[in-house]
């Protein structure tokens, strides 16, 4: 079982969390200006790397907040978790202690 560190609640068992896919996917500001290929790329295509992967997790049984985790997809080793700020401004663990909303 993975031990995932929730940025608010601390380390908890994997069973308390749900997985949300790749982190840092930014919705295009003007979808009408995109080609079908670009829109499909935003909707469906993900990096699926072998190695370090930044991904979204939700602490479903805990504080219910979304946050980011950097996990190695080969070893499953978790390098750390981070809070989510406004799009494109993800900050390292502990840095973004005040929410920016």
């Amino acid at each position, binding site marked *: 079982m993975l031990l995932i560190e929730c940025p*608010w*609640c*601390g380390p*908890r*068992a994997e*069973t*308390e969390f749900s997985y949300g896919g790749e982190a840092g996917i930014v919705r295009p500001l003007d979808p009408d200006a995109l080609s079908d290929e670009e829109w499909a790329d935003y909707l469906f295509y993900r990096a699926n790397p072998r190695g370090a992967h930044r991904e979204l997790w939700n602490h*479903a*049984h*805990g*504080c*219910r*907040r979304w946050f980011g985790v950097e996990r190695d997809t080969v070893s499953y080793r978790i390098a750390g978790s981070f809070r989510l700020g406004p799009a494109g401004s993800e900050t390292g663990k502990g840095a973004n202690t*005040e*929410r920016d909303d």
Partner: protein
Amino acid sequence: MSEAMAESAPDARVDINELPGRGFLNVRLDPRDKHAVKSAEQVLGQAMPLVANTYSSGTHRVYWLGPDEWLIETDAENAAALSGELGEALADFNVAINDVSGGHVAQRLSGPESRTVLAKGCTIDLHPREFGPGQCARTALARATVLLAAGSEPDSYTIIAARSFTDYLRHWLTHAAKK
């Protein structure tokens, strides 16, 4: 709770009791807004816990649920009035106060084996060094989402869960206590 007591094995060394007449308010506010926190504290007469996984005791119990979310446990008959008072005091702030009394039930688990029984279905470290009086955690117990709080007496816990999970949890705890 005669049914629960009848179910408990005489040697179970664990007591499960529903706490009757409890009311619950869910409060959302931005803790960076010191004035909002202070206004809420003035109405409550006790601290809003700002440290994760802690609760404050006083007239009510105020549990930390998330970085901008709390659960207030109070007398059921007092819940509506308290909700109104909080709403009035916090009218100028960006807050949400919801009476969730109908959806929640508090149970008390006590007895020398209570920690062992809980540990069968809960992944957090329940040792008093890690989870002592004043601490709470929303976590999973036997796969149900619960708010677990360590009582001031050793080996006593409050379990607050959705009303629909209450019977399931009581049966699970009773069963777990037998083995």
